[in-house]
């Protein structure tokens, strides 16, 4: 157990998380290190990351628990001194440690700083392994003997190695560390062990269960700004070159275990295509129906071709994983940071109202063109943010990313195969709705002028409370098959592509974006009111969604009508609220609906299975619902752990969904 937590043994995970986020833990940690481990502290503060890592491996207390696996994290010795833009939201190549002993990775000649540091990291890993070996018994001892010189042989040994790499990365300030395609990665060990009689199926399943429970450890530390946002995502299922759907016993087993364990973390992203068997979709819906918040579905039929068109190698594209929430990336080969910043589509509209001489706007088309001009300025700002990122030298990560070793180049200097930059986006739905409402109110019905609209949004509907109520009641066009809405949405999307497609990072990485973001609440907190009935500070529309819809088919059709080509594939999630009754009573029909949706071409889809009644009760009496899990942007979290604005938004969306769907 984390020793720092021992010092705060009365604090729960949420409280510890708050102390981490506030910086208090970091301050205490530095005080402690200066007093007790000054030599390590000096290395920790230096640029000599490799030696700092080695020293950490020498002195970090080995926390050997009674569990099946060795997995520990010590905040005191976390190498979290920022040396530049840090790497996170990625998945390492676990195969490197599964198929090799550590010692086989050494450079014979240290002909560069990178090679020297790389070897030092490996030395650190060996030191740590030997220390664990000395303090463990039986099978764990054997694992940590073999990890130095031999590849993994058995399923449980492979799980231990994955945990070891995962632990090292969290310990060294990498965040949102993904787990990759575990079904694909582990199947050969699983099948071999069954065939040889090493273990029975149920024993292997038990090991996998223990593994998942271990991964869930240190939840408070692993969580980003919100509890639950750990990035510990397991990708399951895939499509082969012949468009067959590939899955195996581990695919089923992992979904079953997530359903059984009812933990918000780790979570699953299930890749699907038009040939995904009903058995798999049925199990996925059963799991989703428990309210555990996963799996999220990712449509290979759409995603893979877009990756290939972007320039991803075909075989890599077939093997795609995702970063923490949903953004496609090539696990083990990519250090593309998929969420470097958020494009807020509402800002240009605000700026237009604040700065533009509205008498110059002669028509609706004029208005749209002017909006795009302001959007371009925002895009330039986004590009500046991305360009300014100065990535920290990271030989630790370089050990676990393909090709860095071969090329002798650190990840920060372009050692990996893929190093694009991804951004997310918010408020497109609000902007599209707002523009169409302006068209209706001003240019068609001539009820108001642009100056009126400016006044309304800048004064937060002061003296226009009636209008606010009417607009709030208006059905959203975004998320429907309204032709005008789709055309306007596409126009804006293509414009973003046009103005970002030529962008390159220092090492030639391209910029990609998507229509989902974690920031639909935070980015909206300081956003002006919008003429779609949204008040100042109210959350933006969540991803691709429409809470005023009375059916799910239309949102599937809408999402399928959008073009995710060029650089528009960085996560495009349909987010729907579903009453538990629906899944329970209409599962087979939901499966049929999903299958059509996959064929039509939605990009990704996640469901929040909640009832407003339960959420309201849980908000008022949290002690009665300690294990209530909900879906928040791209992860699952305990409802009780969420800040109040997230709870309120979920309740509001659930009520709206139930009202319109009934």
């Amino acid at each position: 157990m984390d020793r720092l937590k021992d010092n705060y043994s009365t604090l729960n995970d949420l409280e510890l998380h708050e102390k981490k986020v506030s910086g208090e833990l970091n301050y205490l940690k530095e005080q402690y290190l200066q007093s007790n481990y000054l030599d390590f502290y000096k290395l920790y503060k230096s640029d000599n990351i490799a030696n700092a890592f080695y020293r950490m491996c020498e002195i970090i207390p080995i926390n050997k628990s009674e569990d099946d696996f060795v997995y520990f994290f010590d905040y005191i010795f976390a190498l979290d001194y920022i040396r530049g833009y840090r790497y996170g939201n990625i998945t390492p190549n676990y195969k490197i440690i599964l198929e090799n002993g550590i010692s086989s990775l050494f450079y014979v000649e240290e002909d560069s700083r990178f090679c020297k540091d790389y070897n030092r990291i490996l030395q650190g890993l060996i030191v740590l392994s030997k220390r664990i070996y000395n303090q463990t018994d039986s099978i764990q001892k054997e694992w940590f003997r073999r990890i130095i010189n031999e590849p993994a042989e058995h399923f449980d040994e492979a799980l231990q190695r994955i945990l070891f790499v995962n632990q090292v990365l969290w310990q060294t300030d990498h965040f949102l560390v993904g787990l990759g395609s575990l079904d694909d990665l582990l199947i050969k060990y699983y099948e071999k062990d069954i065939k040889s009689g090493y273990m029975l199926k149920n024993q292997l399943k038990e090991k996998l269960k223990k593994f998942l429970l271990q991964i869930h450890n240190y939840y408070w530390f692993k969580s980003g700004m919100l509890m639950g946002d750990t990035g510990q995502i397991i990708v399951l299922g895939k499509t082969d070159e012949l468009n067959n759907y590939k899955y195996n016993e581990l695919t089923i087993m992992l979904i079953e275990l997530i359903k059984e364990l009812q933990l918000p973390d780790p979570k699953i992203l299930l890749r699907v295509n038009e040939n995904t068997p009903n058995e798999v979709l049925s199990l996925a819906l059963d799991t989703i129906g428990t309210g555990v918040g996963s799996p999220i579905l990712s449509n290979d039929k759409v995603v893979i071709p877009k990756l290939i068109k972007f320039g991803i190698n075909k075989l890599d594209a077939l093997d795609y994983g995702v970063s923490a929430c949903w953004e496609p990336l090539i696990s083990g080969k990519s250090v593309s940071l998929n969420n470097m910043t958020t494009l807020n589509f509402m800002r240009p509209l605000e700026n237009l109202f604040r700065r533009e001489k509205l008498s110059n706007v002669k028509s609706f088309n004029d208005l749209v063109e002017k909006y795009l001009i302001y959007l371009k300025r925002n895009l330039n700002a986004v590009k500046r943010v991305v360009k300014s990122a100065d990535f920290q030298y990271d030989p630790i990560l370089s050990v676990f990313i393909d090709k860095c070793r071969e090329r002798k180049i650190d990840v920060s200097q372009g050692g990996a195969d893929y190093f694009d930059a991804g951004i997310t986006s918010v408020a497109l739905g609000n902007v599209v709705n707002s523009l169409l409402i302006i068209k209706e109110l001003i240019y068609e019905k001539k009820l108001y002028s642009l100056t009126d609209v400016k006044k309304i949004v800048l004064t937060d509907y002061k003296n226009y409370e009636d209008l606010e109520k009417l607009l709030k009641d208006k059905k959203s066009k975004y998320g429907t098959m309204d032709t005008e809405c789709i055309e306007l949405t596409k126009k804006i999307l293509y414009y973003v592509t046009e103005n970002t497609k030529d962008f390159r990072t220092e090492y030639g990485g391209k910029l990609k974006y998507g229509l989902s973001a974690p920031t639909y609440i935070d980015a909206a907190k300081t956003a002006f009111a919008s003429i779609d009935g949204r008040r100042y500070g109210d959350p933006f529309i969540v991803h691709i969604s429409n809470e005023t819809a009375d059916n799910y088919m239309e949102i599937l059709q809408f999402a399928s009508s959008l073009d995710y080509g060029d650089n528009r594939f960085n996560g495009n999630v349909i987010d729907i609220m579903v009453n538990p009754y629906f899944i329970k009573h209409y599962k087979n029909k939901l499966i049929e609906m999903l299958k059509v949706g996959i064929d039509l071409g939605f990009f990704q889809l996640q469901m929040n299975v909640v009832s407003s009644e339960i959420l309201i009760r849980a908000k008022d009496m949290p002690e009665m619902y300690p294990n209530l899990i909900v879906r928040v942007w791209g992860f699952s979290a305990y409802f009780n752990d969420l800040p109040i604005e997230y709870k309120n938004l979920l309740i509001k969306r659930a009520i709206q969904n139930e009202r319109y769907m009934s």
Partner: protein
Amino acid sequence: MNYSLITNIQRMCFSDGPGLRTTIFMKGCTIHCPWCSNPENISIHKEKYFIKSKCVINSNSGKECKKCKYNEGLCTATGEYGYYKSTDELVEEIKKDKDFFSSSGGGVTFSGGEALIHVDYILPVMIKLKKENISIGFETALFVPLKNIKKIIKYTDFFYIDVKILEKNMCMKVLGGDIELYFDNLRYILKNAKNIIFRVPCNDEYTLSKENVEILLPFFKDNSSVPIEIFKTHNLAKNKYDSLSKVAMGIKCTDEVFCDFYSKLIEQGNMVERKEI
């Protein structure tokens, strides 16, 4: 004036037939059930409505629109139940979900009110939909001329047939329906239709009264090959009644009576499913 008015086109209906369906609610009914959950579909004519809760000027009092500046385009508190769509427009609307129908065995279900009043309007729609292999069903109380049924039965894949009050005098008194007409139509449908499901709206006071149950049980026993769905009537349509300045009777069904009826049907060998709202 065309009286084939529609009040709602409800997509993603999961309980109005097989697969994923779109249900078309037609305006006009030949009976008047006290528990009706679609009061806007009883009259065949357009009807003005006023939804008090949506009125920004007058939400705390008043039962009718008092006209304000928002009437010219933004107001959703007033309007009319019932609108007309040409048959081509209706076909195009239904076909929006064709992809969802074909894989799920779904399609369109005509309901209301009493959709079988409007067969002259619906028939050309059905013919066009059949060319696209879209499944078609009807929900009906069967209090319509037999000739109406004969016109559309060839194109109909299934009927949901309401079974409510089967005693002649009570049927006329409570529903305003001619039970002989009902039975004539039923005999024809049982002989000629592809698929039938009985539906029983259950409430303590009328359909599951002791007297009516004594008639229902042998009726279902005689027609045991036809599956039955039973559901409780409810008061969820109160807002719609309010919008029409009508009074919702709030006729309910207790669990005890509902479960007892269900058990009796099971005991006598019927295929019966309990549906929840």
